[in-house]
């Protein structure tokens, strides 16, 4: 799995951080999403897909 972000669109709702805290974080100055692991291990894949599905601004793109 490979993850890319379109952080310009991020509205800092923070749902990805709640769902997959080992993969996503928020930067201190404005809460915009930061990728901690662009190629997370298999154990994280379900959570990452869930985060991508829930993200209100469709920032997270998951590539197989």
């Amino acid at each position: 799995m490979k993850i890319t972000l379109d952080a310009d669109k991020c509205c800092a709702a923070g749902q990805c951080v709640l769902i997959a805290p080992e993969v996503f974080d928020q930067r201190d100055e404005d809460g915009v999403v930061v990728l901690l692991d662009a190629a997370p291990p298999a154990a994280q894949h379900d959570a990452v897909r869930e985060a991508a599905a829930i993200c209100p601004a469709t920032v997270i793109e998951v590539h197989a």
Partner: protein
Amino acid sequence: MSPTTPMSEMSEMTMFTAPAPLPVEPPSGCPFDPPAAFAALRTTQPISKISLPDGSWAWLVTRYADIRTILGDTRFSSDTTVHGYPLSGMTGGPSTRNRGFIRMDPPEHTRLRRMVTREFMVKRVEALRPEIQRITEELCDAMERAEGRTQGGVDLVQALALPVPSLVISLLLGVPYEDHDLFQGLTGTLLSRTVPDDEREAARAELRDYLDRLVTAKEADPGDDILGRLIVEQQRTGELTLPQALNSVRAEGTPIDVAAFAALLLIAGHETTANMISLSALTLMRDPATAEKLRQEPALIRGAVEELLRFHSIIRNGPRRAATADVEVDGHLIRAGEGVVVAVPSGNRDESVFADADRLDVCRPNAQHHVAFGYGIHQCLGQALARVELQVVLGTLLRRFPAMRPAVPVEEIPFRTDMSIYGCHALPVTW
């Protein structure tokens, strides 16, 4: 109509009657269910016309997928000054003056929202958890000492549900909590659907005056809080001589209206969570098996809060949008200049997304897919805070008051069908 009017004429006249208003009443005897009309609309007419109080009309959107499509598409504008925006009867009143950023579109919305997003991000809110727990324990201590328990019941709304989020947002913003009677009262008027628009406007003006005075007083000594930091930012961008490049950036943007920020965050910060607390507490009192399950496994409370947000969907009057282009949504054409009202409680009971949607299931795997906080770039800024407040308060109530129950029959609880935010006006409890 005369009793001799022929049937053919009657049906023709029916065709031209105004559409019905937004459904708001829960089904009789089911205060936790959304208006019954939504289920039928989702099947037969997922995008239908409703009438607004001034006689105009808007599209009502009831299916989950369509709600996400519309709230996720910036061609549906949040700017209340855009042609066709459905202002009549909207939450907080129809005035387009002193708009908060929820009534704006990008790039202004993005610029202003990002000035406060850091304040509500997950790690900042998690750091507040001990303080929220402390506030909750103190209010629970006071509730234990209250005499009302044996005399008709303690009102859980006034004793706990409203003070917790009010105290927390006052603290974060830097608004003196001693003024809570004033700002809670004005917020109540602003969020009422039954008071006339001019009365709501008067409440809005009074809240604005109060916050203007507060912001002016804080200008000399901004303080370590959200309003203080916004004032510093305003002073920095408004008073310093900026290089030409920065000046041109600033010229494109509206000046920072600190009082408008304050009004938005103050209103949104306490009524919403307060009503979720009382409705959720009442639901758990009436479902002892679920309450016991959560007491045994406190780790389930996070998921339970998501399910309670989905189940109760307290936002009952929008959000609203105006189409700025002709857009086809699921085969239905919405034309530029037409207004849209989204039915959050309907989307969250959509069976095509949430199996057995009318049942509360605190272990529902996809509960967090709810649209209780909205969807799209305007999704609730304070959602992490609301989640922690709900987790702390409900967890503490379950632990400290396992025998808590309503002190009156449920039919006697005054539910808020007259408000834009559903809940209970009062919730007498005993234990």
